[in-house]
């Protein structure tokens, strides 16, 4: 390899590092004639936690479903690390490091913590054509580590997820995302149906994301939660972004005046 050919590579790498981790450009989406997203552009920087707020039907869910590969956009593009990507399935999004945690639990209650952590990505001791024996010792060991990483301490990786409290379950989901080197974690109303104490616990997990080098998008109805856990507030209404400011430069009063 000559130096001449190496240097553009190097500068491309540098550009990729400088580029925002996710950039949406002019996304449009129609559902049966309803214009759900009207040219939304949003940039998420590395290790930044963005709070996404707005009423029902504002387009929050549509936006994150596009980013997480559940629905394709009708128009517009998504860039990851400055490169244009085509995200067709949740699996593709996960391969790009984008993982989503929904309000309805993303865990299987009657399976153990260790098994839940590795659903769909089981480490195999022996395998033929992608099927084989799971390396259960590895799964147990790694799940204990992954959970301790988000400051959650549980009795045993063999306990069923259904035995955990709602907040602990979200903690395991977040631990799972971090363990699999997710770089962007989308949390769709993760504190719904949780008690005050459990909500605080989950918001604590979200606040800890930048320390793990993970960017986050927290979708919430509750402005207090967003201010507590996020770096930036983005508000949507009628399919458009109508407000976008760092948390430090705004207040609940200003935000409410805006609406």
């Amino acid at each position, binding site marked *: 390899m000559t130096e001449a050919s190496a240097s553009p590579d190097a500068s491309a790498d540098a550009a990729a590092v400088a580029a925002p981790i996710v950039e949406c450009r002019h996304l449009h989406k129609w559902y049966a004639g309803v214009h759900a997203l009207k040219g939304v552009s949003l940039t998420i920087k590395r290790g930044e936690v963005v709070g996404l707020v707005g009423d029902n039907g504002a387009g929050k869910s549509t936006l994150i479903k596009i980013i997480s590969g559940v629905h394709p956009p009708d128009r517009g593009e998504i860039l990851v690390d400055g490169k244009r990507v085509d995200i067709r399935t949740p699996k593709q999004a996960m391969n790009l490091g984008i993982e989503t945690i929904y309000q309805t639990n993303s865990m*299987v209650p*009657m*399976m153990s913590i260790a098994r839940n952590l590795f659903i769909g990505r089981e480490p195999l001791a022996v395998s033929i054509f992608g099927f*084989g024996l*799971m390396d259960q010792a590895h799964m147990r060991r790694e799940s204990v580590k992954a959970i301790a990483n988000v400051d959650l301490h549980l*009795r045993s990786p063999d306990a069923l997820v259904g035995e955990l409290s709602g907040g602990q379950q979200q903690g395991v989901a977040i631990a799972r995302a971090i363990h699999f080197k997710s770089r962007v974690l989308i949390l769709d109303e993760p504190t719904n149906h949780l008690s005050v104490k459990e909500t605080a616990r989950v918001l604590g997990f979200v606040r800890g994301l930048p320390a793990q080098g993970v960017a986050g998008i927290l979708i919430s109805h509750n402005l207090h939660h967003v201010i507590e856990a996020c770096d930036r507030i983005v508000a949507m209404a009628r399919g458009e972004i109508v407000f976008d400011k760092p948390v430090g430069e705004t207040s609940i009063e200003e935000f409410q005046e805006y609406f």
Partner: protein
Amino acid sequence: MRASPLRNLFRIYLEKPELAGAALLCILTAVFEARSNGAFLSPDNLRGILGLLPEVGLVSVGVTILMICGEFDLSVGSTFALAPMATSLTIIAGVPLVPAIVIGLVIAAVIGFVNGFITLTFAIPSFITTLGMLFIVRSLTVVISGGFPPLLPDDLATGVFTQYVGPGGLLRASFLWFLGVSIAASAIMTLCNLGNWIRATGGNLEAAATMGVPARRVKLFCFILCSMLAGFGGIIQVFRLQSPLPSIGDGLELQAVAAAVMGGTALTGGIGTVLGGIVGALLIRIIDNGLVMSQVDANWFKFAVGALTILAVIGNSWLRRTARSIKLESPA
């Protein structure tokens, strides 16, 4: 806070749902043994119970796995008849034994595929798809039999399924096949990634799909597996009876669901074990036989199975609710 004995009991129950059925199995065995003055556990009687177990047991294992995956198959009783009918007719047409068995199993697999394909493509309850298939497949069986149960040749080498083996000829060879299939099925469910996917698909379909489990293909696999096991059970029964009656397996679909439920499998999916399905099948066999041995009117058999099924579901859901309402895990 230390775990109380009650909590431990619930935790064990949640992790091993087949234990309640296994306990009942022991109790019933003891009762029947006492009531029959020791005839129940005599070698002759055990030979009868264990000789029939593989045929129904194979169906129960398939139905259990499919139920764990969150789907139903009511057509297993009809598949139980069609697969051996096809095998028998091909044997009578001059095809050797092994290819004829393969043909029967392939036909069973096709039924499973159609069940799964229709259910998943049109997003309708498998309860309905397979109820329709129950009639369709039974009708096909009678049609291709031509109305007469054909007779299998006497010199057919079916001993590999039917001969008595083991100490005192206590078991039929079919029992070893059943044992092998059960161990393999249990290994898939507990040790393999495929088992993880099946349980996740049944336990929380949305979560499984989000985590990249190919849920549609997993379900299709379970439908096909369930039908093939039903077909295999039927083939073994026909080799034992020496003739493929078009009526065999009638009502077996409900017995298999009852067996799965008695073994702790939940109707909602995600909960259950292969061992539980076997325990359930054994329970049904033991009740069937034990009532006769205790000289109770055999017509009470269906009453007992029905009552136990309802009790099992009530018991299971009560235990699950209670176990959940107690906070089992305390933060460390």
